[in-house]
């Protein structure tokens, strides 16, 4: 039973973390605390933290045949990044 409660605590802590990250990101955009050159990278970093929480804790990406799960998501992400990169080249 103790192990199960631990998992519940972990879920709750991570949920609160995600809400706090969202609020911090919102605050950073509303104020001009960080210069606009750096801010996009900070915000993207926050997004990546939240996504890792979702994938690892909520979706169990590491369970059992874990490598196939990670491979499919990372493979999809790789193609997506290539697409975004080449579409962004069109702007130049």
């Amino acid at each position: 039973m103790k192990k199960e409660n631990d998992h519940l605590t972990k879920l709750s802590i991570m949920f609160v973390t995600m809400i706090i990250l969202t609020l911090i990101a919102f605050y950073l955009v509303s104020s001009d605390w960080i210069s606009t050159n750096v801010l996009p990278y900070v915000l993207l970093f926050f997004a990546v933290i939240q996504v890792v929480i979702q994938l690892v804790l909520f979706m169990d990406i590491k369970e059992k045949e874990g490598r196939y799960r990670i491979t499919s998501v990372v493979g999809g992400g790789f193609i997506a990044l290539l697409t975004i990169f080449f579409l962004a080249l069109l702007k130049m």
Partner: protein
Amino acid sequence: MQAPAEEKLFSDKQAQMNILAFWFLIGAEVVVFGCLFGIYVSVQELTANGPGPKELFNLSEIIISTIVLLSSSFTCALGVYTLKLGKKRMTFIWFLLTISLGIGFVFLEVIEFVAYVGEGATISTSAFLGAFYMLLGTHGAHVIFGVVWISMLLIQLVLFGITKDTAPKLFIASLYWHFIDVIWVFIFTVVYLLGKV
């Protein structure tokens, strides 16, 4: 009665294969949304004298729908947690809460879009708005599909209880729901927050 253990619920070869196959679908969905994000980022500045991201978006409304969707993801995780413990009633309640929050999210999004269209920002106003409605619309359609899907699984849960059949189905639907939330985190960051920077 002894609650069915987690290993027993998901031990079926078929269930294992179904879950893995769903991860492949998620990989493909990442590509779909990656393309939509790519289009959005590359045409973001083409506002054709219409409203741009800075004028259009109201962040305090967006933060509410973000918290609604994040909460629905959390209740979904709790639903899976009680599902693994074999508690039918609590599983039903958590998943019901999940789809209620999902409907709330869609409702907020519809209000938002109606307000934009009222301001003259329609899908054909500019390339920016076209890409915006495409990206957000695809995400919203996914949320609606998830709501319908989980509703049907809840009917099965009520009829058959937590079995080797229904448990993996609910688990897979929960993966889908978390994936929708992952996409929203990026939409919130790339479209709304970076649109304001």
